[in-house]
């Protein structure tokens, strides 16, 4: 005991305590955001920037046109460095007001995405992590150009001050915007392993094109190869609306923040003003249920009362479920167009499930199935996972959708075999996708989500089953006819051989014609 005590005292004396900035935290823990090795890092960087660009276009209803270019960065003496690349992305999105540009790209956890609506990014982290990663691996700066479509284009040259989580502006220029260009360009250098990341990157772009059929994405890789994903439609999903937090999804901190901001002087107004789908009546009933005086000033709530409100919010059954206006699912038509474009299947069917909610967060599941064409066949179906229009490529085995496919044992009933060229598409849209990690790669098992995915899979499988039955019939009829085509002429020949005198072989075409007619009638 004595020894251990003195040891503890000694070590506490020597220990230095310090606070670290968010930038510093993510610098130290970059693996949790998907930047753990050169292959993964280059994929993650490219992906974060593409997603930011898509969001920037989509929130304003602009069909995205994105140009991506990855090139070798020549070293200081002009020689080619094997592992250092220059990544440049240009979009035609809304553009960023000049006063926000430095923070938007140089301050971690700064952004426009801390609201309750469906967007791809959620943490205000990804794009900056990419820049941060570039900075620490190549010691270079990021160049940002952005314009709102007015007369000026603003150009910034900046780096992230990691210890203070602040942008450090090294240069700023204002350019003339002759062509009224609107959008953003980001360019920076980073280390990576493109040859190894290439398959994932191409797969990512292909799947992105699948769920964003209205987007045009062009990618030029370091060897100068051009990959172009054309848009097939100009129709875009309704942009999501911002919504208030739903009581089911609130915690103590959320309530505290709202109290700090509110101008309401009593709890009745407070409840009906700041929460999603809570009106006067519901507010009153809830406050009675939680034994909170409805005339009480929210500022006067005690800590215990706040905790009680949060607890009662979770147990109260009278709240209306969150509505889905804050969501922007693709819709069956667009998803189908995307899948047709990338896989050209013989059969595709998409189903959008009714909105539902988990822990106060609304969600919509879109489930699709494709068969044949360029649909890859492997031993256990191909699974395309999407969340808020982002393809999820890593950790498929841990994902709830893969588990559902694996657990489903009655494929035989659907005339489906796992080794057929069949792909399932699971798109989860939510204000808060229940990712298991910051890396946004796989979705946790939430019972509400699981139920919708499972029902969706069953439903689209039934459609596929119907299609397959029909296919099998057509195939059968074709094979049948082929058998008759093979054998009837032989029967004619042999029966002629059997005759006592030589005769001409009779024509079997009238018989074949009658078969064809009856098959056509059946079909």
């Amino acid at each position, binding site marked *: 005991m004595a020894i251990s005590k003195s040891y503890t005292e000694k070590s506490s004396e020597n220990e230095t305590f310090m606070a670290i900035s968010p930038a510093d935290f993510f610098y130290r823990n970059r693996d949790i955001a998907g930047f753990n090795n050169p292959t993964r890092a280059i994929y993650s960087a490219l992906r974060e920037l593409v997603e930011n660009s898509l969001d920037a276009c989509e929130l304003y209803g602009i069909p995205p046109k994105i140009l991506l270019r990855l090139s070798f960065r020549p070293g200081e003496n002009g020689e080619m460095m094997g592992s250092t690349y220059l990544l440049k992305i240009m979009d035609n999105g809304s553009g960023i007001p000049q006063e926000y540009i430095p923070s938007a790209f140089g301050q971690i956890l700064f952004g426009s995405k801390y609201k309750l609506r469906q967007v791809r990014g959620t943490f205000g982290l990804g794009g900056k992590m990419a820049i941060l990663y570039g900075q620490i691996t190549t010691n270079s700066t990021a160049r940002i150009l952005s314009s709102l479509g007015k007369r000026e284009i603003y150009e910034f040259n900046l780096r992230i001050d990691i210890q203070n989580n602040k942008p450090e502006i090294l240069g700023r220029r204002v350019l003339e915007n002759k062509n009224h260009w609107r959008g953003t360009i980001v360019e920076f250098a980073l280390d990576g392993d493109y040859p190894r990341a290439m398959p994932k990157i191409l797969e990512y772009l292909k799947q992105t094109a699948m769920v964003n059929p209205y987007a045009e994405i062009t990618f030029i890789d370091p060897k100068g190869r051009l990959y172009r994903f054309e848009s097939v439609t100009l129709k875009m999903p309704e942009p999501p609306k911002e919504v208030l937090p739903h009581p089911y999804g609130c915690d103590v901190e959320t309530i505290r923040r709202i109290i700090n901001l509110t101008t309401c002087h009593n709890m009745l107004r407070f409840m009906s003003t700041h929460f999603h789908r809570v009106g006067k009546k519901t507010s009153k009933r809830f406050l009675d249920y939680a034994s909170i005086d409805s005339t009480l000033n929210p500022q006067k709530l005690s800590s215990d009362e706040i905790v009680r409100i949060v607890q009662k919010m979770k147990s109260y059954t009278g709240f209306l479920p969150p509505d889905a206006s804050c969501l922007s699912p693709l819709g069956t038509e667009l998803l189908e167009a995307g899948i047709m474009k990338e896989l050209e299947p013989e059969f595709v069917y998409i189903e959008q499930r009714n909105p539902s909610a988990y822990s106060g967060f609304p969600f919509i599941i879109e489930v699709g199935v494709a068969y044949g064409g360029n649909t890859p066949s492997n031993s256990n179906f191909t699974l395309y996972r999407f969340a808020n229009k982002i393809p999820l490529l890593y950790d498929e085995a841990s994902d709830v959708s893969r588990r559902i496919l694996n657990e489903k044992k009655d494929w035989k009933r659907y005339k489906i075999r796992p080794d057929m060229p069949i792909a399932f598409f699971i798109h989860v849209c939510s204000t808060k996708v229940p990712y298991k990690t910051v890396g946004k790669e796989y979705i946790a098992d939430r019972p509400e989500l699981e139920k919708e995915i499972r029902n969706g899979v069953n439903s689209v499988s039934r459609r596929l089953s119907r299609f397959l039955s029909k296919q099998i019939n057509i195939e059968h009829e074709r094979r049948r006819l082929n058998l008759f085509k093979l054998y009837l002429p032989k029967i004619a020949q042999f029966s*002629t051989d*059997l005759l006592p005198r030589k005769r001409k072989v009779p024509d079997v075409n009238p*018989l074949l014609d009658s078969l064809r007619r009856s098959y056509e009638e059946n079909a």
Partner: protein
Amino acid sequence: MPRKQSIKTRKQQTVKTLEALGTKIYSEIVHKQFPSIDIPSRSTSNIHYEEASRHYVIGDKSVNRSSRNIRHIRPFTQLVWTASFAHTLCKSKKTSTLRDVFYSAQAFDIHFKDQKESDHIITDLEAALDLSREDFNVFPEERSQIFGDLTIEYTVPGYQGKQVNLTMHPDGLAIGPALTTAELIKTKANKVIVIEKGAMFTRLIEEQAYRKFKAILVHTAGQPPRATRRLVRRLNTELNLPVYVFCDADPWGMAIAITIICGSANAAHLKDLATPEAKWMGLYSSDIPKYKLPSNKLSNIDIKRLQDMMKDPRCKEKPWRPQIEHFLKQKRKCELEAFSRYGLDYVVTTYLPEKLM
């Protein structure tokens, strides 16, 4: 001599029947109809044991094999091909074997999965035309032999009119296509002894038993092929010779005797195969203790077979039933060769004289 014409007229009849089938199919196609053939059903429900005639007969039910039916088209084509092949064989007076048919089909791009399938189609054709495959000049691989004082006259090309006495060769003569299609001319024998085992057949020749008993000897080599069964019947009906069947004392030997005497369910669609007048003369189960023959224990399979035979309608009466029961009680079996224990001539000097009395 009317008897001498039996083979020749039968052949002519066969050709006509085959041609009639061809004409029917041909004219159906010409009239834009899908040709079809009625075949007597060979399912167990359509095969009955006829007590009066003491053999299996086929019932009235028939199946229609139609070229309109996807499941029938292939066997139908095979059937018509087999008919045309048989027609060619008969016209050119050539013979063929079951195996040969299986391979010949490939030259016409008619595929049989295996010989079993082609054998089956031949059986269909037999049933459909009420003829046997020997009529079509299709024979199984011959392994049976015959020996004895019987003069035959060949009808096969090259030997037409040639007469042969079957004592000519001491190993016996194979019962092949030529012998099967030969006319039976004359004999000095007064009985036929049918033997399961080659060793016993040879023994009886060597001991000159055929002379002593005035017998024609037939070696079945296990279950007798149909040609052998038909020949035995012809010896019985055409030459009025009594027939005795001599097999091992076990269920399999008994089955050989039963097949010769009562016919088999497999060939119920064919007449003229069974010889109901033939007599089973041994070995009986009861002969084992009676002659103190060396014996072996019955195997489980033997016992199973005997139990099945208890249910067989052919075995309801004497001599079968008491012997089956005796077997099951005694649980011993014995082969014809067991007589060797008493010396090489014991069968001829003791057993057969007693049995043939």
